[in-house]
């Protein structure tokens, strides 16, 4: 029958085009990043200096861990708003328990060596609490983590008395300051964790199950994926990453402010979405999320080098996020939802 042959030709054309777009979406922001570098070079020759670029990489390394964490959660079709509070609270509690009473609100209950384990343990505990409420009790993830965001921020304000922890032990400062093989340790940590996450989400059954759950949880369950367990793990890992990111910032600034991380979640979401990660789950890549946050920080850097007054940076930041969204909508050719 001739009718069998007819529809094949246009289908093949569409197929090839679709494939090309799918591969390109991953790299959609790379031209934007390159373009930004050219603009930066025009604005100020200092921009392309290795020290400046290294600066940008280091500045974004802490928040980029939040972006990594959020991207993992978004892939499963969930959201975690509380990451920004975990970013402050985890090192905050460590400082509180370790610092001697006196200048800051320390308790001095534990020796300084406990600071890093406590930071990570607090992150893990927060992630498991989120998992308990969202996965086990079936509460709405958006509202649960919004509640956690407020509670955790309040806890940090409470234990610090609204002030800043400083005079921190050497162990807490080390990671944020150390230089390994000529590069700041936080850049190494960021790059390595991203590389691991890219491999895990691209090449392991666990990683692929994040996409499956975000795309169609029932189908994932039917394929034998332990959906609840994967969600628990993802939420726990995300909070752990947030705690680590907080630790890096604490080290770089040698202090924990009561507001550490406050408001960062908006940048984090923006970076993930600009990088092609879908808010409704199951779409996007970790590499895309990385290009998203990198682009945002490059633009900020260019603005600063261009001498834009600090009072205007906020408004410009918001505008840049919108413009970046529009650009990525155009380059990816897909509606963001």
């Amino acid at each position, binding site marked *: 029958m001739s009718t069998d042959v007819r529809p094949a030709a246009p289908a093949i054309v569409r197929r090839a085009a679709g494939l090309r777009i799918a591969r390109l979406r991953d790299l959609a922001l790379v031209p934007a990043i390159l373009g930004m570098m050219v603009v930066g070079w025009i604005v100020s020759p200092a921009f392309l200096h290795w020290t400046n670029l290294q600066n940008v990489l280091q500045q974004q390394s802490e928040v980029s861990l939040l972006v990594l964490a959020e991207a993992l959660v978004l892939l499963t079709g969930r959201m975690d708003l509380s990451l920004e509070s975990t970013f402050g609270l985890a090192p905050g509690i460590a400082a509180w328990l370790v610092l001697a009473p006196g200048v800051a609100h320390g308790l001095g209950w534990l020796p300084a060596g406990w600071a890093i384990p406590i930071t990570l343990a607090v992150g893990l505990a927060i992630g498991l609490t989120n998992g308990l409420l969202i996965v086990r009790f079936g509460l709405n993830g958006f509202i649960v983590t919004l509640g956690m965001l407020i509670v955790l921020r309040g806890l940090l304000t409470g234990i610090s008395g609204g002030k800043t922890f400083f005079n921190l032990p050497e162990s807490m400062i080390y990671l944020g300051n150390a230089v390994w093989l000529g590069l700041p340790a936080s850049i190494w940590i960021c790059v390595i964790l991203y590389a691991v996450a890219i491999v895990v989400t691209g090449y392991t059954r666990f990683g*692929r199950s994040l996409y499956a759950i975000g795309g169609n949880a029932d189908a994932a369950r039917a394929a*034998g994926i332990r959906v609840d367990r994967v969600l628990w793990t993802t939420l726990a890992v995300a909070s752990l990453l947030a705690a680590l990111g907080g630790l890096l910032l604490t080290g770089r600034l040698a202090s924990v402010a009561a507001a550490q991380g406050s408001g960062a979640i908006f940048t984090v979401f923006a970076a993930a979405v600009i990088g092609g990660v879908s808010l409704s789950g*199951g779409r996007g890549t970790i590499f895309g999320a990385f290009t998203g946050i990198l682009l945002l920080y490059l633009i900020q850097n260019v603005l600063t080098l261009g001498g834009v007054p600090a009072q205007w940076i906020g408004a410009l930041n918001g505008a840049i996020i919108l413009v970046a969204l529009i650009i990525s909508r155009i380059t990816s050719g897909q509606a963001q939802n």
Partner: protein
Amino acid sequence: MSAVPERATDAVAAAHGVTKRFGGTVALDDVSLTVRPGEIHALVGRNGAGKSTLVALLTGLLAPDAGAVTFGGAPAPPVADREAWRRRVACVYQKSTVIPALSVAENVFLNRQDRRRAPLPLISWRSVRRRARELLRAWEVDVDVEQPVERLTVEQRQLVEIARALSHGSRFIILDEPTAQLDGQAIERLFQRMRALRDQGVTFLFISHHLEEVYEVCDIVTVLRDARHVVTAPAAELSRRDLVAAMTGAATGLIAAPVGRSTAAEAAAVAARAAVAPALRVGGLGLPGLFADVSFAVGRGEIVGLAGAGGSGKMALAECVVGLRRAEAGTVEIAGTRPRPGDVAAALGAGVGFVPQDRHRQGLVPALSIAENVTMTIPDRIGRYGFIAPRRRDALGARSIDDLAIKASGPAQPVAALSGGNQQKVVMARALAGDPKALVLLQPTAGVDVKAKETLLAAAEDAAGAGAGVLIVSDDLDDLRRCDRVVVMFKGAVVGERPRGWRDHDLIAAMEGIAT
């Protein structure tokens, strides 16, 4: 191909006197079913007869309260052992069980992707793709394994799901209303495929509302009614009349010769038609790539069918009429006015009522009540100044429940709790709520049972009797049989028109573009 022929006497799958209750209602009452190797076994019954529950028991999603399920004579595995169930039986549901954004290859081997042995147990995508390609080639499914599943047609997606089921080792496949979303040619190809697979030793349990299909492809028919087993017989030995009687428990007029409306109503309609502008007039309508220069009119009180195979452009045309799409050329006129093209609100305002093609996506808000769904298109009739009067709304809802014989506890019941046929009645009620001058029905009886079909078509006839022009766009010949005339489209153009009383083969030949 498989071990089945050696034990040909054993049933591939069987339910022995299974009973299942949900709270107070009995979903299945002492039902037995035996599916023998290499047969295509039809399971038919009206909505709510217990088909879905039986499928859930046979696929291990539910455990029976009494009775037992066996495979090849051996008892079924425990409900928790999904892998064991997957090796014995697979079901392709109406609702797809694939992950849209992931590739075909990954969907087929989800959670069992090939892994390298060294140095790390990472997924080898090359090997996943190769195995998927081999699998699909073995079952003659022509699909690019690298593209995301969301880009497949419904037909391709079903074939991928069937291939995936076969790759688990199952040679018993349940197809749950597979034809509901396919056009005529795709259905024919699916049937060819089913026969070919049957010859290779695959056994099917086929669930369908279309009795034509049962006769075309099935060897054995089992009928369920009101949670009980009614009859199992070879399809060849069961007459159409007996089958319908077994399903409904009573004779029904639908399968008999088409029933004309009363001559008085007919005469009145003709008179009304002559006096005024037609309910719907389409003039030179065109949308590049889909259809071009289509013109016809539907008079007041007239029922016109629009027929055509997949790719004829009939759906796109109808969507242009109701404003879901915007035509690039030509005009749409509703009772003498021209609503803004591509604007649903304007079309509704001009007097269009319509049943969209996909009731789940465009027809209903599942969590809202029947009354809210029915009155969604007519907020100005149930209140003033943007406020809604709940009493008036519920009264309208209750009227729809009566008019269309919707099985529901009341107008406040959420639509999600209704069966498919009753949901479709709610969509119909919504289309009728505004007393439309032009009623456009897209696949109005897709996936509903015989009796619900009867009610839906009768409602359309009542609307015509009240002076509306009705356009029925459907692949189902039973829907078209009741039309005063049928306009036939082929490859985006009107190629003919048949008055009431056409013969099936003549209409189908016209739809396939074969001149007669």
